[in-house]
């Protein structure tokens, strides 16, 4: 007797333990996806501008970054973290303090002859760590003409640093004249750099004759002031349309990735569901038991072909075919892209759809079939009028399951998408065709590609977890809906 009781207790304990572990896992998956994404919110928002003092007829007026005398005022990951005591942002520094300041940059004009431009100004570039900008950051810019300058006017020109887009900066960026040289009459200057990221203003000529006089020149400040919290800014930027996490001025807009994933899913599910249901109807209503017995294992084999192999298939067969068709017209370097991915995705999901749809159709009670047959309906009519409506919930569940599977499938997209984040464009037929055949990139493959060379627990790492969270929430919703439909199918039959 005690052995039976012990056995009972053991089995029961194992059952409870497994149940408890499952619950724990479920909670843990949620918890960790959320907690790891918090690293995304530790990101910084770097900014950078090129500024130069130029003669009025300078050939670099529209490309300040090409000007050899241009200075860079920037915060990004290559900037220093060092500060010094004199840098009190709230007050105007005395001229003798300026020399000691790390954030001082000079803009000088020496000659109007482009061949004689020299890039040897006192303090050229200033690059700061982006961290400080969250409390407000200020760069000081000293502008004056050198004694050998022969012109009678001078112009201050500025533009955003290469690859920096002020729209991606959650700071109010202001270029302000805080002190004019003695004896110069000039109106106050205050420029909103987010509204006018590129431009120039003319300044009355002011020459510094000696080194001491440099410090008396025009003193500008470039001030960055946060306009929203870091969290809000991170979320706002996450919903934008640029994904470029590794450039100096990193951008984490996931919209192109999300849209590509949704488009691939939509296309392949729209292809696979009707085809799959058609084949399932044939299997469950028409095929002889012998054929059915052969068919199921073949479907299982197709369903078990590893996705890496399917992806390679697409690379070897479908992508070259697409390139032959559209390559010349659209200048494609390869046929990898949205359409190739969606086609292989269809092959990937089709066997599952057929197999599950067949189960759903076979769950329809035979009395319905026989009744319809007794009414004299042909097979096609029975399918359309009786079978499909009766199996509707089950078939919807199948379509939803297929959607979730395709949405999260990684290797096929990794191999076949081409790897360039692109915003879909359907404004014209040509653009739409281009969207279909040109390289793109989805959410799962972005995670897979970039997690390999990301620094752990960095903002980029956090953003990859945010992407995973988006994918998880999407598939979770679809799966739960599918679960509800499956339950309904069981209840109603």
């Amino acid at each position, binding site marked *: 007797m005690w052995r039976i009781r012990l056995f009972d207790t053991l089995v029961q304990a194992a059952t409870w333990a*497994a149940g408890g572990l499952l619950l724990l896992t479920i909670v843990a998956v949620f918890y960790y996806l959320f907690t790891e994404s918090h690293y995304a919110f530790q990101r910084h928002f770097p900014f950078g501008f090129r500024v130069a003092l130029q003669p009025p007829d300078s050939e670099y007026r529209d490309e300040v970054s090409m000007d050899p005398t241009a200075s860079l005022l920037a915060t990004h990951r290559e900037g220093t973290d060092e500060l010094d005591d004199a840098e009190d942002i709230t007050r105007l520094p005395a001229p003798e303090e300026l020399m000691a300041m790390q954030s001082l940059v000079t803009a000088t004009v020496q000659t109007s002859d482009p061949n004689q431009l020299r890039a040897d100004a006192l303090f050229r570039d200033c690059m700061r760590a982006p961290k400080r900008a969250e409390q407000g950051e200020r760069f000081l810019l000293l502008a004056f003409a050198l004694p050998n300058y022969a012109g009678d006017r001078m112009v201050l020109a500025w533009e955003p640093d290469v690859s920096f887009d002020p729209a991606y900066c959650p700071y109010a960026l202001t270029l302000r004249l805080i002190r004019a040289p003695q004896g110069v009459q000039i109106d106050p200057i205050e420029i909103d750099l987010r509204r006018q990221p590129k431009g120039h203003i003319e300044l009355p000529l002011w020459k510094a004759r000696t080194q001491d006089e440099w410090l008396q020149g025009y003193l500008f400040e470039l001030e960055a002031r946060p306009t929203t919290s870091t969290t809000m800014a991170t979320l706002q930027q996450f919903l934008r349309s640029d994904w470029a996490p590794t450039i100096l001025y990193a951008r984490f807009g996931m919209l192109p990735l999300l849209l590509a994933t949704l488009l691939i899913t939509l296309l392949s599910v729209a292809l696979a569901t009707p085809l799959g249901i058609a084949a399932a109807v044939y299997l469950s209503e028409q095929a002889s038991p012998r054929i059915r017995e052969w068919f199921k294992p073949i479907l299982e*084999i197709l369903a*078990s072909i*590893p996705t890496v192999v399917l992806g390679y298939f697409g690379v070897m067969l479908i992508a070259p075919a697409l390139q032959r068709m559209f390559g010349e017209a659209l200048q494609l370097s390869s046929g990898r892209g949205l359409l190739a991915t969606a086609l292989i995705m269809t092959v990937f999901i089709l066997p599952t759809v057929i197999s599950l749809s067949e189960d759903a159709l076979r769950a329809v009670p035979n009395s319905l079939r026989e009744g319809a047959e007794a009414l004299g309906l042909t097979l096609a009519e029975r399918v359309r009028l009786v079978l499909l409506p009766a199996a509707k919930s089950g078939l919807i569940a199948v379509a939803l399951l297929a959607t979730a599977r395709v949405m999260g499938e990684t290797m096929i997209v990794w191999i076949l998408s081409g790897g360039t984040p692109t915003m879909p464009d359907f404004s014209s037929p040509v653009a739409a065709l281009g969207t279909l055949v040109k390289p793109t990139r989805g959410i799962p493959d972005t995670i897979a590609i970039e997690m390999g060379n990301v620094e752990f627990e960095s903002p980029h790492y956090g953003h990859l977890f945010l992407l995973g969270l988006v994918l998880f929430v999407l598939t979770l919703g679809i799966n739960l809906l*599918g679960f509800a439909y499956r339950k309904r199918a069981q209840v109603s039959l």
Partner: protein
Amino acid sequence: MMDTVRSGMARAGGWESLAAQRDARRARTNALLMGAFGAVGLATVLLVLALVAIITYHGAPTLSWEFLTQPPREGMSAGGVGPMIFGSVLLMLGAFLMATPLGVFGGVCLAEYGERSRLMRLMHASVAALAGTPPIVYGLFGLAIFVLKFHFGVSLLAGWCTLTLFCVPSIVLITESALKTVPAALTDGGLALGLSRWQTLWRIALPYALPGILTGVILSLGRAVGEATPVLFTASVYYSTAETTLSWETLRQPVANLPYYLAEGYRQPGVVPERLIWGACLTLILLTLLLNAGAILVRYRMRRRYL
């Protein structure tokens, strides 16, 4: 002439001929539609055969005993995929040993207590949702918790844990639905004979459901062995010439595996020759086919035993 006759017949109350025409049309539609449906089914079969044929055609010349057992040589441009096969099998075996008990008992838990409390209903829904959760999400989770939080590092151990998590939900669902197919007459009979609830489960219900459960377990392992994503950041290493030996140290080291080898093989074109990639494709397919064949065999043998 014929036309006037026909329309005359129709006007003279020829509803029978109208009905005949309609029936002919219905029959045509029927034949057309059902033919199309059959064609789609046939096309799917042909697709499978073509896929397997093309891969066999390209991969078969590479396949040899040396290819299957030797490590890669000369910067991956020659040699075989021995360590990758070894790693894939190792990953799968570990996941099998960990996931099967957990999944089966989890399924028992759902089947025994399901539908009763709100907690269990919630659990059922979450397991169903987890079964459809993308493998990449499991990869992320495994990276966060096993590799970083538990300090397993990128290792076989972390790979096992992640793969286990990936397999368990589907095994749970399969066990649960297999247990539901056990006829009440059998379990009631057991209870009537004085067996306890858990003895009934262990001696009667589980053996009856075993073929279904085993098939499901093998199929989900087949999916796991071909899936690169869960082990991508948790256990994989691309370049491995290591001797395939087993020790406790192996647990803490990353392993090479076939899917990852293939994935990196395409990503860095020119490193691994196409010949080897086709060979590895065929090997991977053979591995999953072997598992599938096992599943089918189990199903047939078990079915015969119980009927």
